[in-house]
């Protein structure tokens, strides 16, 4: 396995033109995103709702058109692909959606849903017998019964539907699956089952996940590495353990402290963020987080923050003038 | 059980009802702002319902049925008028007339007549009326109908004498002038007037466009005051509705009814001078073959049409004009119904190479007369049965007019027209010139000899004229055979118990309110 990442994202930017108070404005949903995803790993993406996580997923899936920046998948730029090449890129990157109810067409049977991708990728399973066999295999792979192929989505429970969504994503044997909040709509007990399933599949199939979630405990459970997103930018990035143990960015620290903990023995001391999330229509100058940051100084407003590196782990970095020190880190982590 | 919400529901309904009554109130103001005095059957109003609203009351368009029926002899009057029963010309605004030169007629006008606006009637007004109708440039309908291209020279000799000079001697000029309604000298000579002023027994009181037209007696009328001081016209397209208005007491006189409109005893029938006929075009095969045209004549069962379809309210026709018109030939027999003969004639023509299987269009006009659709269907079926290939085309007025008169559209293929011809003037010349001359406005056939015969007839007078035209009608079928006559029609008038009125052959075109009186 080569060292070069499977998916490389550089400077990805997505701008939505909007009308605000009668005036045309730009909503910068993604503002220069850099991201690497290696083969077979799980990259967790965390952030509050509205920070651009879903937009990133949709842009990577080419459901939205990127306005600037590059994507490289296995060395090629999918944005430049057309026709059959584009189709084969599509085959290798798949997605699991947040809402297992809305992402499945209620008028199609489970079998039809799982085999739907092959109706576009006609070369994959040519005969109906092949397809039926593969559908049964996939259903069993995700923990459903092969007899379920004839059922309609509404006859399944939420967790089962999400398994169906995963089976559909697997139908094309992808290298990468982008999971956009795949368990947030499910009950806690079911969440664990689905997460375990994802883990098992990764081990079995070697597929890489970009795992998007606002739930830190979930991310910590599944991810090898984590990126933290705030207002369309990635503010911190690193291995899961270093990042969760020693958050550098004040925002990450705040997130961690706010996350519910199952361990009640620890002292709960939250860092309460002041102020509202700024509108992405007019993001703050300099560091985006400064308006809510208790460590902000004048320089945060004037220039873009530099990259701060974790002393213990060189691959753990954050964009901040005033990264958290050991004392603060302990505070945040103890809360989680 | 649902008491709590009952009030909600009823409030909703109340709001709805309020909106309804609001819009009703609004409408009562704008649509029906007239008082309803006229709608109650009283002794002083006669209420008439027509098939359609007159588009205009312009007197020079009075030969259009929908205009004339209101205007003629009610609002305006001509110099002379033709008695529809006797056929004689009677003095009206002119008391005397004579042919002072071969090409000039002199009229002596009635004195002491004023228009309803107070201006006196004199030779100048008469001259202006004739001049504006005949020589005007604004497309007077009556001009084409009675004068064709003829230019008249009209002079007011003095206040009561008028001379009219024609390029060629015209023995029936007074009859032609009976179509020209007299308007004041102030009437526009360059455009049509919508609400005219006249010398008639009535004047226009109010015209609520689309709804109602009210006439009131003209106090300055020179003759006897009419029995009804007020007359109201309304219009309804459906015959059944017109009939129902009589039954329901909403109208006193209804025109243009059919036997099935269910009027019973309130229906009065009268011969209306209209003749229905199938006219063939001679320019295309197979209709250019006289055997085919004769076959058409044999194929139509006129007796059944009259008896069953028209419920006997018609008379089988043997010629273009009915009895009572100068030139009608009482000796002519209708074509016998003989489908066998028709088939053999067609076979004969086919043997000679005539393409008898070419599709022939049978064209007519919707609403031409009650049951026109049924008549067309009967004729079509009859022709199919003897071996012709006939398709039906019912057109609106504008559509059918182009097929009916010159210049005909090009590349039409063979077609038959079911026409209804009304001779309002009572002289065969008005029919024959149009329908039988080889360049007649509604003719596609003719020979030079036959044209000469017609033209000679037109120069005759009195007995000779009658005989000459009778010969024309007798000779046409064998020499030309352009027509298959079907029936002389009968009009049905609805009459309420409040009004007594004796319809005559001119009623459809000229319904004189002055002849209507309160019943018994």
């Amino acid at each position, binding site marked *: 396995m080569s060292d070069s990442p499977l998916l490389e994202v550089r400077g990805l930017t997505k701008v939505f033109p909007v009308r605000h108070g009668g005036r045309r404005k730009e909503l910068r949903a993604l503002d220069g995103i850099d991201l690497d995803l290696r083969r077979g790993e799980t990259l967790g993406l965390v952030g509050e709702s509205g920070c651009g996580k879903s937009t990133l997923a949709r842009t990577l899936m080419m459901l939205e058109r990127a306005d600037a920046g590059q994507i490289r998948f296995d060395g090629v730029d999918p944005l430049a692909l057309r026709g059959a090449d584009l189709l084969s890129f599509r085959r290798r990157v798949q997605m699991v959606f947040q809402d297992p109810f809305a992402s499945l067409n209620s008028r199609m049977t489970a079998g039809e849903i799982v085999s739907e991708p092959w109706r576009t990728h006609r070369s994959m399973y040519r005969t109906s017998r092949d397809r039926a066999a593969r559908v049964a295999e996939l259903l069993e792979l995700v923990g459903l019964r092969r007899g379920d192929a004839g059922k309609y989505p509404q006859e399944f429970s939420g967790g089962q539907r999400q398994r169906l969504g995963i089976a559909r994503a697997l139908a094309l044997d992808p290298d990468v699956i982008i999971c956009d909040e795949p368990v947030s709509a499910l009950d806690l007990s079911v969440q664990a089952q689905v997460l375990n399933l994802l883990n098992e599949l990764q081990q079995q199939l070697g597929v890489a996940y970009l795992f998007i979630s606002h739930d830190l405990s979930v991310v910590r459970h599944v991810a090898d590495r984590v990126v933290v997103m705030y207002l369309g930018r990635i503010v911190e990035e690193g291995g899961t353990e270093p990042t969760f143990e020693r958050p550098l960015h004040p925002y990450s620290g705040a997130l961690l402290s706010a996350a519910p903990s199952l361990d009640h023995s620890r002292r709960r001391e939250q860092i309460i963020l002041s102020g509202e999330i700024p509108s992405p229509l007019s993001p703050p100058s300099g560091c985006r987080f400064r308006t809510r940051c208790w460590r902000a100084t004048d320089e945060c407003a004037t220039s873009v923050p530099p990259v701060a590196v974790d002393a213990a782990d060189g691959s753990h970095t954050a964009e901040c003038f005033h990264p958290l020190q050991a004392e603060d880190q302990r505070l945040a982590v103890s809360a989680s | 059980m649902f008491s709590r*919400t009952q009030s909600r529901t009823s409030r909703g309904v109340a709001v*709805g009802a309020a909106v309804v009554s609001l819009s009703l109130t609004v*409408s009562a103001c704008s649509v029906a702002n007239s008082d309803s005095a006229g*709608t109650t059957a009283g002794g002083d109003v006669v209420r008439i319902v027509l098939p359609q609203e007159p588009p205009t009351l312009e007197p020079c368009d009075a030969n259009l049925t929908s205009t004339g029926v209101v205007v003629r002899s009610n609002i305006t009057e001509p110099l002379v008028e033709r008695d529809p029963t006797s056929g004689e010309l009677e003095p009206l605004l002119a008391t005397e007339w004579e042919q002072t030169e071969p090409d000039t007629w002199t009229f002596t006008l009635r004195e002491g007549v004023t228009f309803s606006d107070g201006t006196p009637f004199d030779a100048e007004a008469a001259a202006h009326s004739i001049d504006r109708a005949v020589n005007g440039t*604004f497309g007077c309908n009556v001009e084409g109908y009675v004068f064709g291209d003829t230019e008249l020279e009209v002079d007011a000799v003095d206040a009561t004498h008028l001379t009219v000079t024609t390029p060629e001697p015209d023995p029936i000029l007074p009859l032609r002038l009976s179509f020209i309604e007299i308007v004041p000298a102030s009437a526009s000579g360059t455009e049509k007037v919508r609400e005219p002023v006249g010398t008639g027994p009535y004047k226009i009181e109010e015209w609520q466009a689309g709804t109602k037209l009210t006439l009131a007696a003209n106090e300055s009328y020179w003759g006897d005051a009419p029995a009804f001081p007020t007359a109201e016209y309304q219009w*309804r397209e459906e015959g059944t*509705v017109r009939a129902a208005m009589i039954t329901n007491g909403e109208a006193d006189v209804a025109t243009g009814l059919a036997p099935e409109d269910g009027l019973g005893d309130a229906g009065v029938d009268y011969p209306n001078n209209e003749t229905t006929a199938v006219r063939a075009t001679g320019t295309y095969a197979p209709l250019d073959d006289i055997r085919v045209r004769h076959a058409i004549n044999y194929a139509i069962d006129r007796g059944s049409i009259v008896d069953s379809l028209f419920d006997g309210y018609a008379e089988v026709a043997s010629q273009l004009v009915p009895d009572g018109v100068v030139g009608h030939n009482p000796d002519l027999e209708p074509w016998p119904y003989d489908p066998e003969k028709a088939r053999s004639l067609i076979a004969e023509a086919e043997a000679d190479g005539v393409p008898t299987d070419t599709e022939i269009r049978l064209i007519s006009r919707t609403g031409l007369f009650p049951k026109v659709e049924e008549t067309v269907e009967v004729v079509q079926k009859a022709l199919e049965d003897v071996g012709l290939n006939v398709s039906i085309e019912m057109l609106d007025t504008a559509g059918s*007019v182009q097929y009916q*008169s010159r210049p005909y559209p090009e590349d039409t293929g063979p077609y038959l027209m079911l026409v209804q011809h009304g001779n309002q003037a009572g002289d065969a010349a008005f029919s024959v010139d149009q329908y039988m001359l080889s360049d007649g*406005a509604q003719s596609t056939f003719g020979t030079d000899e036959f044209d000469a015969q017609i033209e000679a007839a037109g120069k005759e007078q009195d007995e000779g004229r009658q005989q000459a035209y009778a010969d024309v009608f007798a000779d046409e079928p064998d020499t030309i055979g352009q027509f298959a006559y079907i029936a002389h029609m009968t009009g049905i008038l609805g009459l309420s118990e409040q009004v007594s009125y004796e319809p005559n052959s001119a009623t459809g075109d000229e319904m004189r309110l002055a002849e209507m009186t309160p019943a018994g």
Partner: protein
Amino acid sequence: MLTFLRKRATTSLLPLVAVLLGVFLLARMTGDPAALYLPENATEAQKETFRTANGLDLPVWQQLLDYLGGVVRLDFGTSLRTGEPAAEMALRAFPATLQLALTTMVLAVVISIVIGSYAAYRPNSLADRLASFMSMTAASVPDFWLAITGVWIFAVMLGVLPTSGVDASMLSWVLPIATLLFRPAGVLTQVVRGAMVSALSAPYVRLARSKGADSRRVVTDHALRNAAAPALTVAGDLAVGLVNGAVVVESIFGWPGIGKLMIDSILQRDFAVLQAAVLLTAVTIFVLNVVIDLCYALLDARVRDKALV
């Protein structure tokens, strides 16, 4: 709101011009009015005079330019038939149709909501089935047949209503409105019923019911509001369709409205009047559509508010 209206007005301008163009060109394809307005044996010279006088001799594009130039100055031409200004005739006939249509639509909405929601409240009951059957039947009877049957029964046989015409008494409104009412009321009842049945089975309504909310109140507050959107769409289409019914009803009952005016001006090749009438109708329909869109927005907002509570 204002921007919405302004945007609608500007985007509607082009379709209006298209309507005008369409009716202008189509009308001119129906034939030469000269043959109709001149006597049967008019000479070609006379026809030429007529055409020149009425501008019909010019090439069509020039006629069109002249006409559009007039429209900009609010001059819609003159009627060939009556010599009156065409716009005046159209405006005079318009209120009659508008009142007829408005009253009909209000009644249709009221009737359909009452019957439709009652039927939906007890689905598959006898009353529901009866209501469905009656509304389907009502929607499929030819209007002219209804009109004439109505005249026959109520005016001739029973003598309780006038046959036709417009007079001061309200009674003359009964038959025309009843005739027009059948189809929209029938269709709308079915739509309301259908939408109400699904709204009543929606989770939040069932929730409200299970929480012991008064059932009638559930019907009026929740279900009806949700049923309003589909009903509104259909009601709009039906209101537009009333112009068709008006053509028939107005000619039978002698109602001086715009439907009759339009059909008469087609028959009489009275182009200017036809154009003015169609344009007026088109503008009205556009206004109606805007109103419907506004209603949607309003409904949407209220539905959203409800959902948030």
